[in-house]
């Protein structure tokens, strides 16, 4: 809840802290510049303000600009004050000056032209015999007293990072333009940007050396306090409490500064690595500039071509031309775990294709045809026999069989017709059979039968 309130407070004041360009922002910058250049007095009048507003309007080609009466209330919060004795005159607050200073220093970092080494040396040096008491140490390097020095170093590093970041951007941009320029002019441009890296790398190395020396010196001072405590322990026991607390304070100071420099080390490490990397790249570029530039150009052309060939689709892209697609190896290894496993191997079904035996087929077919014919003949004879029985009222089996054998030359037909006719008598009540016990032998055949007559 508290946090939200603070944020609200910040938000509501924000516009007042940093008014937007035409709501006084540019006006404050212009006032600051003009006072600095002594074009206007430190205590300026509304006439000065109106002139500046007119200049801004003309300078930015604006049709209208918010007049002084509309913006002055906002500016009176933090940026402007009236002169206590001459209320028609105004002056810029320290806050206003600080804000503009901050902007200027972000753009033209004051540390840019100062070596880091010098910042370290100025703030972190111990001259021999300079520090004798813990009060002297605290005044020089105590947590509160050292804030400013620490800030100088961190600001310096930040400036360095900003500068390098800009330089990378510049290098990358030069590289992007390479097809428009000759290789030699590119190398020259690179080298100019790059000189900065070289100088910075050297500076950082020196700063680290002087920092290491300082930490060594500081540790010696701490050791002095330790020795004093040891001596007091032996020779001046009354003072031992004080000297112990002095040594502890000295140690605290050392730890604080060492931790600070550890964080400096980490930042420096990153900066150095980047510088080294960029330096490698530049060497590489110089070695193979023409071939690499050509290669890069080819890639750009291919990229442009693929863009020209591409069309929108909801799911992806479609090529309108025959821009070729390429394959890569892709055989993902799949692990399959069957849930059930059939342990008995399946029995194979073998189909044997038997070839047709044509002679056998023909013989069998003939047999079938013959049998069918025989049955037909038998049926015809049975019908004939029944006709005889109908017309004559009686039928003699032996005569019938004889005439069949005469005609068909087949005893089995005669026999089957006789059997059928005998069966016929038992099926029909109006047909009688008369069997006389008198052997009749059929001529030419080895067959004898009772003299049998069927009557109706």
């Amino acid at each position: 809840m508290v946090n939200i309130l603070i944020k609200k407070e910040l938000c509501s004041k924000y516009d007042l802290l940093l008014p937007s360009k035409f709501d006084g922002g540019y006006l404050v910058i212009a006032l600051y510049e003009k006072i600095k250049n002594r074009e206007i007095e430190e205590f300026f009048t509304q006439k000065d303000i109106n002139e500046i507003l007119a200049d801004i309007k003309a300078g930015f080609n604006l049709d209208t600009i918010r007049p002084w009466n509309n913006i002055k209330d906002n500016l009176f919060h933090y940026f402007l004050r009236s002169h206590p004795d001459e209320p028609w005159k105004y002056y810029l607050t320290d806050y206003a000056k600080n804000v503009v200073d901050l902007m200027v220093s972000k753009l033209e970092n004051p540390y840019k032209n100062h070596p880091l080494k010098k910042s370290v040396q100025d703030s972190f040096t111990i001259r021999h015999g300079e520090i004798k008491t813990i009060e002297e140490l605290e005044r020089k390097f105590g947590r509160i007293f050292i804030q400013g020095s620490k800030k100088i170093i961190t600001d310096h590093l930040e400036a360095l990072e900003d500068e390098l970041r800009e330089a990378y951007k510049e290098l990358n941009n030069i590289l992007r333009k390479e097809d428009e320029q000759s290789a030699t002019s590119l190398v020259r441009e690179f080298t100019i940007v790059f000189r900065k890296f070289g100088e910075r790398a050297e500076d950082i190395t020196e700063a680290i050396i002087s920092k290491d020396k300082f930490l060594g010196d500081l540790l010696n001072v701490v050791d002095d306090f330790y020795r004093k405590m040891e001596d007091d322990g032996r020779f001046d026991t009354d003072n031992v409490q004080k000297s112990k607390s002095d040594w502890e304070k000295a140690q605290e100071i050392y730890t604080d500064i060492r931790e600070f420099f550890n964080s400096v080390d980490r930042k420096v490490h990153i900066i150095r690595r980047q510088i080294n990397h960029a330096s490698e790249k530049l060497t590489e570029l110089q070695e193979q500039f023409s071939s690499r530039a050509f290669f890069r150009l080819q890639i750009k052309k291919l990229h442009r071509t693929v863009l020209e060939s591409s069309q929108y689709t909801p799911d992806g892209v479609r090529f309108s031309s025959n821009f070729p697609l390429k394959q890569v190896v892709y055989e993902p290894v799949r692990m399959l775990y069957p849930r059930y496993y059939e342990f008995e191997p399946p029995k194979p079904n073998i189909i044997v294709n038997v070839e047709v035996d044509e002679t056998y087929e023909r013989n069998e077919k003939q047999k079938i045809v013959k049998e069918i014919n025989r049955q037909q003949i038998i049926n015809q004879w049975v019908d004939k026999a029944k006709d005889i029985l109908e017309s004559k009222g009686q039928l003699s089996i032996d005569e019938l069989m004889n005439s069949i054998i005469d005609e068909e030359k087949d005893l089995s037909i005669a026999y089957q017709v006789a059997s059928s006719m005998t069966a016929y008598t038992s099926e029909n009540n109006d047909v009688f059979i008369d069997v006389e016990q008198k052997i009749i032998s059929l001529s030419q055949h080895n067959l004898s039968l009772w003299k049998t007559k069927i009557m109706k």
Partner: protein
Amino acid sequence: MENENYEISDYSFLTEESVEKHFADINILLLSGKHIDHKYYAEYTVLESYESQWRNFYSNLYRLNLVADISDSSRYYYLDFTENGKGKLSDTSRNKELTELQTLIGLTLLDMYYQKYFDEEKIIHWNDIKTQILESDHQEAYKRILFNDIRDSYDEKEWSTVENKFGKTIDSFDKLGWVEKQSGRNEELVFEIRPAIHRLTKLYKDELQNFESFSQQLKNDEES
């Protein structure tokens, strides 16, 4: 060190302790199309130590080339088809054609690699891609291809569709080892472009070598 010229015809290196330990990883990664660079330190080292044996292994058993390529001073290994064909992976289920979208995004990333040439690690945030789409020299083409409409700005829904397209492609490139994804699921896209993205220049080697005739051919095809 192994003598590169000596033809090694046995597979005894497979019983070396380091090979036994990493064989499955190496084999699975390579066959799935991975480009293995020193970020895969263990696998890379084992490949490097027995390079000729591995090459022989893949050439004899899979009819595939184990390629050791160098791009931008970084070395990486991958499997490629031989000159004569696709080896044992000729079956279409065993090789993968890059899609149109993948080809387009791949070539875009290759171009972006050079925008960050002086950075040690080519880290790309989703915002970099957005800037590319909205402000680069090719903004009109990107907008036309990705949004089907050329405007100054697009709403959240439209962006999310485009981010989705990129997200899927980055995932597949991560599997190939062309990029290393650093963002998790449902996080805004962050990844590093690895030097292996240069494989694209190998895939399009013929087109790049005869670029003029290639681009002329494309134009002719379009007109006909």
